[in-house]
């Protein structure tokens, strides 16, 4: 047997030997017993569930190295007793007996692990069931301090307890804390609004800033909060209640919730002009004479009219009243003429309010789809004129997302009419080419200013086609080239090939074309990991002038990320897969390469799944960040660009994924896999098995400790739930 073969055999045998050495079988057995006991309990077989767990507890040795075995056994027994008690009526004598048992068991767990959040939580719930509310509150407070991963849940329970005791201010503070711990959770925010129902009028002034922040991500919370404000203030503080009405109307319109029925949520005897006009309008949104007076008296209110009309018109369209919808939108756009200044403020990361561009776009679409509404195209012509005016206004205020959208829509209209360039002596902007060029300029501006890259292959392809039709050969060549790159970004290699063919048909002969051809080939079919190095694919590393560094980084991410999905099981290929997954991760998480298209989202899931295998963590659900949550995300988060979406979506990276990536970065892929036999990742911590660590592993752990990038704790401290 050769030395390498012996080494391979030893490596294959190593994990089993290592696991044996650390005696983890007791732990695995107790985990299995815990799962079985829970299944038995779910089927109502409480005695067998309990005896299963008691046997498991008996099997745990008394020494300190078996403390996690005892903790899990006691915790499960406590859980079973508490669960069974919670299904009994209060006058059942067995109930209090079970609760006392559970109390003893949880306290036994806390002797070994005084900072175990799950045990503190279950104990607090148990104490609440026994009416020992002060103890429950103390245990939840401690749980919040020691277990931030579930801090939101604990703070919510504590807030509920305090609210039930009418300690409104303290409850509110806990709901705020729960919201901070859990940025995507709606429940604590809903509870926070509920606390204001019990608050005196003077405290209501604190609510609007919170509701404003909630509008984009939690519109139903904002809605109920504004309804609360209006119902409490409409008689006493008319100005404040009208401000709440304005924000409520924005939320309701943007969500498409504004209907005649929804207006019945406002106080029935509130007859201020603001409300009366809204009620009259929603009764007949297709009217040629809308009742706006209060709503037209200020520019911010006039912009809200646009939002209201957009929603009302869509409802008419859903009811197949296309003509009424067209009238509704035309009337609203009339009232939008000569609006100056920005609309009402939007929460961070949310689109601007009352922009006429969307409404004009909807109307153009309506005329396009219902030619009978505009047989001589006169209305569409008028609309194009208005789109130009709107575009000028958007330029004035530097609203780049709108500017891009205006140029694209006008470009599409001219392209559909075959007007690629203006008639001689005519105004240049009245052409598809001009508009598409400026749409791409606006996109470039957004990339520079907002770090928001959009590939826009369809716009580039149309523009190239326009140049070709108008015999602008050099421009057509350049744009077909850019379209070929953009289609690769958008995971459409076949379209990329077509664009490259058109580039050549236009006489394009750059030496980079062969590199692009090779890249398209690589992207079109699975390639071996080995062929992705600098020798076999030099153009992937040394930037050809017409590619650009950013483009190559995006392509490298795709190529690397496509590797971890390959079902290869040899040791070498596992190392390679992990190494490539880390490189792909690094390109996105550290170098800021954007994910382009949903295909990249799938790749990102594969990359993180491969990294997490290092720490025995199953694949984790993606947490996407939008609007205010993205704007407030700490540090740089990976960004995803999807076709047709005006803003990027953020992707939160879990602490486990970050830890796994740091391990690979510090010790390398092969060593990370070796280390994987001795560690488990949980949140931002690495838990290491206690016993019989080989010296090589010990050295690797020392490297990790020295890097100070990761917190390392003994396995005995790993959370039991």
């Amino acid at each position, binding site marked *: 047997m050769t030395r390498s073969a012996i080494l391979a055999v030893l490596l294959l045998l190593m994990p089993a030997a290592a696991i044996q050495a650390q005696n983890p079988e007791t732990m695995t057995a107790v985990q299995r017993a815990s799962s079985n006991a829970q299944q038995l309990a779910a089927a109502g077989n409480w005695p067998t569930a309990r005896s299963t767990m008691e046997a498991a507890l008996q099997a745990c040795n008394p020494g300190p190295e078996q403390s996690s075995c005892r903790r899990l056994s006691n915790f499960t027994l406590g859980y079973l007793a508490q669960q069974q008690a919670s299904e009994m009526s209060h006058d059942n004598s067995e109930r209090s007996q079970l609760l006392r048992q559970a109390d003893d068991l949880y306290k036994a767990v806390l002797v070994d692990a005084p900072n175990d959040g799950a045990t503190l939580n279950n104990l607090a719930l148990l104490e609440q069931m026994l009416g020992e509310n002060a103890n429950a509150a103390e245990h939840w407070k401690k749980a919040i301090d020691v277990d931030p991963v579930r801090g939101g849940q604990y703070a919510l329970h504590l807030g509920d307890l305090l609210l039930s005791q009418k300690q409104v201010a303290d409850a509110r503070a806990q709901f705020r804390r729960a919201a901070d711990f859990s940025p995507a959770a709606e429940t604590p925010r809903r509870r926070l609004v509920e606390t204001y129902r019990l608050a005196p009028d003077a405290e209501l002034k604190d609510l609007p800033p919170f509701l404003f922040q909630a509008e984009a991500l939690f519109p139903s919370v904002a809605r109920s909060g504004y309804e609360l404000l209006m119902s409490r203030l409409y008689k006493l503080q008319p100005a404040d209640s009208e401000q709440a009405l304005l924000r409520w109307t924005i939320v309701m319109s943007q969500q498409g919730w504004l209907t005649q029925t929804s207006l*019945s949520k406002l106080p029935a005897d509130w007859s201020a002009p603001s409300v009366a006009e809204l009620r009259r309008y929603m009764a007949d949104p297709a009217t040629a004479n809308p009742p706006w007076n209060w709503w037209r008296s200020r520019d911010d209110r006039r912009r809200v009219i646009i939002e209201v009309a957009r929603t009302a018109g869509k409802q008419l369209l859903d009811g197949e009243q296309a003509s009424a919808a067209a009238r509704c939108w035309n009337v609203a756009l009339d009232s939008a003429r000569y609006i100056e200044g920005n609309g009402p403020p939007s929460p961070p990361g949310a689109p601007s309010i009352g922009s006429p561009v969307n409404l004009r776009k909807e109307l*153009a679409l309506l005329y396009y789809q219902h030619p009978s509404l505009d047989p001589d195209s006169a209305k569409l012509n008028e609309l194009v004129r208005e789109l130009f005016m709107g575009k000028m206004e958007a330029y004035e205020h530097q609203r780049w997302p709108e500017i891009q959208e205006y140029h694209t829509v006008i470009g599409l209209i001219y392209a559909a009419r075959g007007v690629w360039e203006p008639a001689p002596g005519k105004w240049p902007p009245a052409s598809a080419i001009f508009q598409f060029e400026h749409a791409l300029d606006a996109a470039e501006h957004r990339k520079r200013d907002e770090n928001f890259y959009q590939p826009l292959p369809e716009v580039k392809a149309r523009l190239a086609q326009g140049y070709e039709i108008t015999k602008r050969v050099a421009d057509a060549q350049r744009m077909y080239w850019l379209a070929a790159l953009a289609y690769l970004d958008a995971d459409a290699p076949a379209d990329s090939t077509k664009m490259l063919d058109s580039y050549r048909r236009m006489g394009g002969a750059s030496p980079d074309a062969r590199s692009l051809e090779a890249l398209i080939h690589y992207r079109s079919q699975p390639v071996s990991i080995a062929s992705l190095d600098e020798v076999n694919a030099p153009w992937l590393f040394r930037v050809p002038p017409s590619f650009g560094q950013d483009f190559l980084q995006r392509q490298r991410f795709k190529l690397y990320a496509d590797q971890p999905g390959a079902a290869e099981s040899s040791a070498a290929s596992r190392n390679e897969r992990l190494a490539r997954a880390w490189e792909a991760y690094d390109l996105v998480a550290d170098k800021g390469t954007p994910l382009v298209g949903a295909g990249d989202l799938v790749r990102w899931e594969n990359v993180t799944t491969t990294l997490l295998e290092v720490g025995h963590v199953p694949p984790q659900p993606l947490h996407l960040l939008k609007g205010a949550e993205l704007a407030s995300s700490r540090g740089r988060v990976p960004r995803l660009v999807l076709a047709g979406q005006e803003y990027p979506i953020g992707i939160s990276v879990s602490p486990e994924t970050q830890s796994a990536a740091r391990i690979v970065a510090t010790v390398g892929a092969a060593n990370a896999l070796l280390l*994987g036999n001795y560690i488990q990742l949980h949140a931002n911590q690495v838990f290491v098995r206690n016993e019989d660590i080989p010296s090589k592993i010990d050295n690797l752990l020392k490297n990790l400790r020295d890097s100070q990038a990761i917190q390392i704790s003994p396995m005995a401290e790993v959370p039991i739930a």
Partner: protein
Amino acid sequence: MISKRCLLILLGVFCVAVPVLRAGEKPAVQVIFDFAEKQYRRELGTNAPGVERHALELILSDLNRRAPFLRFTSEPQSAVLRVRLGSPSGGGEMHEVNFQLLVEGTDPVSGKPLQSGVVRWSFRPASAYDSPLGSPEGLAAEIGLSFQQGDHLDLVRKVLSAVPIAHDGTLVEKDPIPVWVIPFTQGDLCMDFPSRLKIIDELHTDVGQRSHELNVEANGVYGSSGSTASASLQNRILSTPAEPPPDQSIALTDVRSIPPTSNKILAVYVLEYHRLDLGCEELIKPAGVVSGGGGGQ
């Protein structure tokens, strides 16, 4: 004389038509996903059924997480949620592609037809109609992601509210206000309070039966404070009449005039659902077997 074969068929029909749901068991709804957009289907060719299958998995996962008061499945059921993406006759430029969602089929218990409104969610705006579809896996992920971003409150309000979640329950009090208990715990439905329900209540009197449709608010659990709660109703969700509108004072007076034992709940619907997205199950479960992985060369 009925043959054995006929008897089996009749029994089979009976079993399908009148399934008995145990307390806490949620009714099943079949989700049918139809990737209808003509131009996109043509582009996908033979990959279209694969995209449909994968997207359906993502849609089911989203619905079971966001609307867990029903059980969504791809298996055939009499209640159907139809999700259509795009239009079979669509095509061309300036064409927005939408999801359209509606409920149809029949209520498996009452046999009554189910009919809902339609909600539409944007998939791609008109200006992005021509954007490449990307890989089949990527497209399925895009469909799943767009679906996830839809307005689920509206979906419940206009569509899922057509499917009854139960056909039983108990009127536990009638004074000072009626209190109904439905056969689910808060954890079963992951329901936060207040959520809104509709109850079809049947009153049995000496002169016959009459029924009322009542809007109620789920706002607590039975037996959380008292000591005399019936064990079978322990921890079940209770609901009280919702504040107007609509005015339901006549119906409520009628309910209060009859002994609770003469009251029967025919159906319960969810009108407005707020999910308990933090700590749906208050008690934290012990961890099960930790999956192996990681090392091993």
